[in-house]
């Protein structure tokens, strides 16, 4: 079947306002989701789950969070790593203090803690915009990481300063800690990303998302319509930090197993920001695509020479890999500055008209 919407008539505003108004889109997304839940746990190797798919899902969640703030509400932030650290340390403190509380609840609560911290660091956004705000949010990045390093209480006075994920179970299956299987951790991460992506989509297509985008596109016109700038921006900081906090907790509990503050340094903030920019600002799908690009392309590049039968010295290959990766990023941004999501949208528009050019 070709990608056509001819004959699909909308007879109510409800069907016109659905997330996927076109039947083919709906089918593809549902199939992809079903495949994601069933396929990898059965087929993928331990290495693929642990080293690629699990971090991919966690980065996607963080990128969705940052995209709500930067892509939708237009507030540039470099504090992502700091907010993720808050989520991770909050989850560690909560689950060691209350071992009987369900780990999913712990993730949500640590998201709330991160949201609270995000609100505080969002206050400067009322006065400063753009790059200056990005510099102000750097303060949160450095201050928070410094705080977790300095105050031993956060790591329960461990001499190494490391936080370690204990064994915790959901519905009788161990999902975190050393004895959890990669499949269990993968499914937990996937379930969380699915739910939170849906929530994000619901927010951005409704009242909240419209007031964020209004502030982003024309703050003066937004005010005269009744959008209150401080409240709206702080809400964006809060929600975004909630997402980043949950992602940070997952990073330690589902992926790394144990971590120090170095795991949340400025490099992580940049990585998530690159995902948002490459994937597409102001797109939930784009956040996921950006994470896929940043995680998968280097792996593909590492294996490509071998697959082609080329034998290169290891050091040379590593350098070529970095050059090609950098080149690809520049290439995609020149082809479409609004990211992979926009490319995908253009492809769909062309497909609807195919085989005619206009």
């Amino acid at each position: 079947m070709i990608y056509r919407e001819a004959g699909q008539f909308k007879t109510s505003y409800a069907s016109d306002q659905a997330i996927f108004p076109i039947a083919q889109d709906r089918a593809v997304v549902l199939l992809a989701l079903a495949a994601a839940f069933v396929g990898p746990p059965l087929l993928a190797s331990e290495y693929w789950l642990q080293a690629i798919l699990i971090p991919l899902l966690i980065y996607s969640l963080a990128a969705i969070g940052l995209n709500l703030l930067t892509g939708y509400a237009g507030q540039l932030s470099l504090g992502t790593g700091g907010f993720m650290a808050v989520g991770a340390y909050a989850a560690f403190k909560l689950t060691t203090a209350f071992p009987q509380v369900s780990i999913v609840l712990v993730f949500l609560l640590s998201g709330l803690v991160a949201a609270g911290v995000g609100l505080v660091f969002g206050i400067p956004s009322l006065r400063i915009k753009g790059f200056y705000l990005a510099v102000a949010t750097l303060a949160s990045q450095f201050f928070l990481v410094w705080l977790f390093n300095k105050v031993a209480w956060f790591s329960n006075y461990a001499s190494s300063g490391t936080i370690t994920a204990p064994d915790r179970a959901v519905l009788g299956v161990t999902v975190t800690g050393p004895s959890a299987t990669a499949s269990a951790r993968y499914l937990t991460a996937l379930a969380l990303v699915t739910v939170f992506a849906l929530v994000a989509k619901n927010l951005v297509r409704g009242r909240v998302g419209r007031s964020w985008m209004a502030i982003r596109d024309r703050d003066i016109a937004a005010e005269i319509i009744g959008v209150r700038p401080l409240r709206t921006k702080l809400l964006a900081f809060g929600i975004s930090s909630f997402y980043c906090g949950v992602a940070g907790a997952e990073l330690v509990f589902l992926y790394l197993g144990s971590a120090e503050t170095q795991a949340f340094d400025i490099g992580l903030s940049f990585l998530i920001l690159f995902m948002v920019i490459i994937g597409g600002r102001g797109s939930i799908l784009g956040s996921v695509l950006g994470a896929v690009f940043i995680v998968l392309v280097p792996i593909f590049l590492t294996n490509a020479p071998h697959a082609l039968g080329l034998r290169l010295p290891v050091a040379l290959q590593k350098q070529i890999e970095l050059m090609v990766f950098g080149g690809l990023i520049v290439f995609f941004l020149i082809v479409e500055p609004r990211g992979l999501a926009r490319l995908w949208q253009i492809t769909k528009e062309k497909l609807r008209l195919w085989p005619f050019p206009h």
Partner: protein
Amino acid sequence: MSQPAPARPLLEVDGVSVRFGALVAVNRVSLAIAPGEILAIIGPNGAGKTTLLNAISGFYHPYEGRIAFDSTDRTMLSPPDVAALGIARTFQNVALFKGMTVLDNIMTGRLLKMRGNFLLEALYWGPARRQELEHRAFVERIIDFLEIQAIRKTPAGRLPYGLQKRVELARALAAEPKLLLLDEPMAGMNVEEKEDMCRFVLDTNQEFGTTIALIEHDMGVVMDISDRVVVLDYGRKIADGAPEHIRKDQAVLDAYLGVAHD
């Protein structure tokens, strides 16, 4: 519709001055807008028309004087509070949300009519979903009224200028304002677009009973559609009356044509 203003004006501007440092942009201007009327504010460039509008909508706070809406004082309110009272406006340079579709732009105009329930909105469920659909239905009525059905899913930034102006009017109308402030709604339009816009302004006034204050430079338009005209020059009000009187007013003619100084 050009009866004398009734006893209780909808908006009362009383001796308002706006200053930027030593520059007095609006100097002790008083005017009243009666419910249901179309008032035109005219004057040469730099006369303080937009500044006066900005003071009414809360972007600038007057240095002296007071502004009352519906008989309550609101001199010092912020723009969102002014919007909550029922005053909507459009801008001289179109101020649409360029990345959003026309539909979303107009839906944003409904913001103050919507109730927030964060959890239900996150789930897009129950009352939150019903509310979205109710407001969508209302917005569709405005889309029909302004004849912009064909562009509802187009991003506002991609529209030609004349349509952008129309969408901006739609967004202001979505708030169901009591008072609509239009800052040069016909600037930069060709004759047909101007005629369309005049028709929409008059229709808005008659169908919804919206009181309208507009700034306009096209004298033909001003004389045709307004019930009353206020003329500003160098921040002062120099005339206030029916269009046919303004046309013959010596002070107005002097302001526009200039006078010989001896």
